[in-house]
């Protein structure tokens, strides 16, 4: 990957590896231009996989992997791609990477594969990835594209992890399967004297909508972002 960083220093001095502009490429999608909360893309997977932290974590890693490497691949061959078939080329690259992820999961994390393979397959249709390829990778150099993919992937990841945190906490009373409420005394022999009553709505996609809505509310309140 790092070989691409030597970005033709012919004309002028090469840009710093993490110059201000490049830092912005990574940090923008985390907050100000978040793919989920601002661009409102990739909502379906944000609802589907976020009932628990663990599958959400796997999903995040899978998406980051796919988005970074598809961005890189498309950026590397951007000058070769015929304009008329660019969308299908993007799709082919994404689909290949997603299938790779699926195969690896099947080999090394079969339980996760059983649980997630439907959703992993749907990464192909995740608009965030296609959006980045079309909007960024087709017109930018490989290294910048990697950073852009990383930014968008992380922006996606932290939101779905946040959603999953609250959904698992209130829906199952646990974090990463660790029974939080039981540990702080919500059990028949703890000081509360009764079990934690799981909030059923958090387990359904409706719960995800609530959490997502709240996150968007808080975030827009802070950043002052207004849809125009």
């Amino acid at each position, binding site marked *: 990957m790092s070989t691409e960083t030597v970005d033709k220093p012919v004309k002028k001095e090469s840009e710093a590896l993490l110059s201000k502009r490049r830092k912005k490429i990574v940090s923008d999608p985390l907050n100000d231009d978040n793919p989920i909360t601002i661009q409102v893309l990739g909502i379906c997977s944000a609802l589907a996989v976020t009932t628990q932290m663990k599958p959400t974590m796997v999903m995040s890693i899978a998406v980051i992997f796919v988005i970074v490497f598809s961005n890189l691949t498309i950026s590397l061959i951007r000058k*070769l791609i*015929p304009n008329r*078939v660019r969308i299908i*080329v993007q799709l082919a690259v994404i689909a290949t990477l997603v299938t790779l992820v699926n*195969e*690896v999961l099947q*080999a090394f994390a079969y339980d996760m*594969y*059983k649980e997630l393979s*439907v959703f992993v397959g749907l990464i192909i249709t995740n608009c965030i990835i296609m959006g980045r390829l079309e909007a960024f990778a087709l017109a930018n150099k490989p290294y910048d594209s990697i950073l852009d993919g990383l930014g968008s992937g992380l922006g996606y990841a932290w939101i779905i992890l946040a959603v999953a945190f609250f959904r698992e906490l209130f829906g199952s009373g646990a974090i990463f399967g660790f029974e939080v409420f039981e540990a702080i005394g919500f059990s028949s022999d703890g000081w509360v004297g009764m079990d934690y009553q799981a909030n059923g709505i958090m387990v359904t996609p409706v719960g995800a909508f609530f959490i997502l809505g709240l996150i968007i509310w808080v975030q827009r309140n802070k950043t002052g972002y207004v849809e125009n």
Partner: protein
Amino acid sequence: MRQSNYYVILFSVILTVVLGGLLAATSEGLGPIQQKSIELDTKKQILGAVVEVTPEMDVIETYSKAIKSEVVDYSGNTVAEDSEGNKIVAEDVNVEKQFDKDPEERLYPVFKFYGKEGGEEIESYILPVYGNGLWDNIWGYIALDTEGKTIKGAVFAHAGETPGLGARITEDEVQARFQGKKLYNDQGELVSVQMLKGESNPESKLDEHHVDGMSGATITGNGLNAMLKNYFKHYQSYFNKKGATATL
């Protein structure tokens, strides 16, 4: 030049070959590991019908101690070799493929559980079952007592049932409902076990042949009922034969 038809076609062909080759290589390379994962998962499911499988458990080790298997045909006779003389191993019998054949033509694996540490006596028989859910296939493993009349445990899995509805057949709580249910009525007829429609049915409805349903998943439940009834019938002659030899 980049827009000419020749270029587009050439580009597409090369892209397809490169990506296709990459995928083929991965699939080929990871194939054996995936096969192992699937095998491990199957053994986990089989054991899961009778014991609680914990993450710490050495599934392969326990399985080799606890389970002996055989394959029988529709009339209950042991089948050791196929028509070409190859040995048939119960673990390798693809229940899904067998499911596509007529019931009389199928091979029926039987997994005999000798206790977790492997004892002398058979503690229960574990039978694979296969059927149709609402969207896709469902399957599972049912542990029966030594007479083949009472359910000792059940695990179910599915390919594409709705999460939160039909997919709940994979939940421990749903599977536990089958424990202790009886397959035969007082007259000795096979009545199987039925999952009721709707959830939280009154106690009075839940006799030894009925279990509580899953609300919103009636069709999955019906598929489950049909699957159980079919396979209990298919394995009937196996247990009848067992009974006959036991009394000899």
